[in-house]
């Protein structure tokens, strides 16, 4: 099993996300993370999937995705050729006994406090998925109330852009 990240530029139409995720479902891929948003042009959306699977199946999946009329271009983004970033908010239980340790970790990870109340506080972290995973591991020693992650956003390094990726 390998983890793959694929960025897809699609026509910005309703139902398009459903068409893509349906293809993942049909090929029995579980999606680990997904981000979708409009781009510099409101005609297009950029959708980034990360998922686990085998090389052969991944190739087949990409070939099938290419066949969808709404798909404009697809690029596989590896750790070497791309920059990746994810945002996480984590809500911790607030108690005087654990607060110093949590804040020490938060400082080390450059997490920001964006909400603070008597019973809880919310920390915001930005970084690679693995960094966020590490922070969660640390926080498991304390009481995590809830977590929300955005999923991986990814751009290719250098001057090339997804818009110009050639269709097969």
């Amino acid at each position, binding site marked *: 099993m390998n983890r793959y990240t694929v960025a897809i530029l699609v026509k910005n139409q309703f139902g398009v996300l459903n068409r893509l995720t349906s293809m993942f479902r049909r090929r029995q891929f579980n999606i680990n993370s997904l981000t979708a948003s409009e781009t510099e042009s409101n005609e297009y959306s950029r959708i980034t999937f990360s998922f686990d699977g085998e090389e052969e199946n991944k190739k087949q999946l990409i070939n*099938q995705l290419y*066949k*969808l*009329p*709404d798909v404009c271009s697809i690029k596989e983004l590896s750790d070497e050729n791309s920059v990746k970033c994810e945002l996480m908010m984590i809500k911790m239980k607030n108690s005087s006994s654990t607060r110093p340790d949590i804040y020490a970790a938060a400082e080390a990870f450059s997490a920001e406090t964006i909400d603070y109340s008597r019973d809880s506080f919310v920390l915001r972290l930005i970084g690679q998925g693995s960094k966020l995973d590490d922070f969660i591991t640390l926080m498991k020693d304390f009481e995590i109330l809830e977590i929300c992650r955005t999923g991986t956003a990814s751009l290719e390094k250098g001057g090339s852009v997804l818009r110009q990726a050639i269709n*097969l």
Partner: protein
Amino acid sequence: MLLSGSDILVKTLIEQGCDTVFGYPGGQILNVYDSLYTHQNEINHILTAHEQGAAHAADGYARTTGKVGVVISTSGPGATNLVTGIATAYLDSIPMVAICGNVPTTQIGSDSFQEIDITGVTLPITKHNYFVGNVEDLADTIREAFRLAKSGRPGPVLIDVPKDVQIAKCEYEPQPQVEAEKAFAAKDVRIKEAAEYINKASRPYIYFGGGVITANAQEEMLTLADKIDAPIGCSLMGLSGIPTDHPRFLGMQGMHGHFASSMAMHNADLIISLGVRFNDRVTGNREKFAKGAKIIHIDVDGSELSKTVNAVCGLRGDVKLTLEKLLPLISENKKPKWQEKISALKAEEENYLDNREVLTPRKALLTLNKYLGENNAVATDVGQHQMWSAQNLTFKTPRRFVSSGGLGTMGFGLGAAIGAAFGTKERSVLVTGDGSFGMCLNELATAVSYNIPIVILIMNNGVLGMVRQWQTLFYEKHYSNSILGRKTDFAALSHAFGADGEEVSTPEKLDNALKKAFESKGVYVIDCKIDKDEFVLPMLPPGGSMDDIITQLEVQK
């Protein structure tokens, strides 16, 4: 000119060269039917007994003509009744446009009467589908649907049109028929690579499927075969692609393929595959499939290359254009040793043929061959009779074998035969079984109402023969729910529908009945009694390879 959505819909169909549509009216498509009424001199609507029959008819029409088949239904159950027909077309890459009515846009999503999310339902069984929310988008959406349906690897496209969009008005300008996307040949470097493999091969085998028929690449394929002295086999979908009696043609390959064809493929050192997708019914156990052979694969759909079997050389492109570029790079040579082997296989195959003089399935189909004209399309349902037909019927013209290959849809045949008769404007034939026929025989009403000449040959064995065959071989003769034992009198049933029909149980009577059937002006049903333990042979057991092939059983020697 300012027109209503429904008028625009019908006018756009006409503009796109569609002169025959199949369908069934209902509440949310009434406006379109009103427009069909207005334009009945320009477009012919065939009313079926059930929407599924309409979808199969549009499919049969498309398979026999190469044109886009069009089917129309209302919302809700009308739309869901199309689903099997759309899926059948999808799996066999048949160009089709399905148009459904839906509740007004103001009611969408409120679970109104006969509302269903049909674009959601058909997402995995269409090439693409559209929900038309504005009348301004309607004409262009239909044009785009036609373009998609016939471009590249063809397939079905569905358009969902809410009732208020059918009523709303906007400007309509007629436009010329849309062209399919321009076909292209595979990359030169791949073609060169393929040529090198082909020139080095000593036992090449050409294996073609429906893609060759779609691309109209028969001539180029035969030239290639002559140049390299190769035998030719095909998948179920390839049947009728080249004349059955062509000296290089060994017949269908696969689980129930012709012995010589399957064995030649198994013994080849190079398989040149054209417009096929190496379905599991073709390869058997993929680990053991044609182990000694390299595979060259040409297909218009890149996702088929190395999907199930690994090709040493995958060429994405139009089969015809790619072969045109490949042919000049191929050196001509004879392969007497390979041909000797092929002749030996053919001779061996003769020994396995079922030559009993009683009314065997093979005997029935050989008798049918005597009456089959060059232009008569033969539709089948699914099961033993389908395989017997594939093995024994002879064809001279492409697009005359109409069978559900990918989805294997029982109940496909009668609708398809009706569509085929409209497509070819000739008598069509349906070979079916009592099980399959029982699924959608309501379309007899359609065939009789429109007085369509159809010969229906029911291979009646009182059981679900293919299921029974498997139960005999692999389930210790536990005939679980495969014995029909129905009391249906198909001849009387035909009469009740207004058709002719008779029962036969000897070869002579069958011959006589077929003679009458082919002279009849309407529907003629022949209830042909065969034994319940006839087998489809040869058979490649599931998960087996050609080494495990079953060629004969005691009962048939």
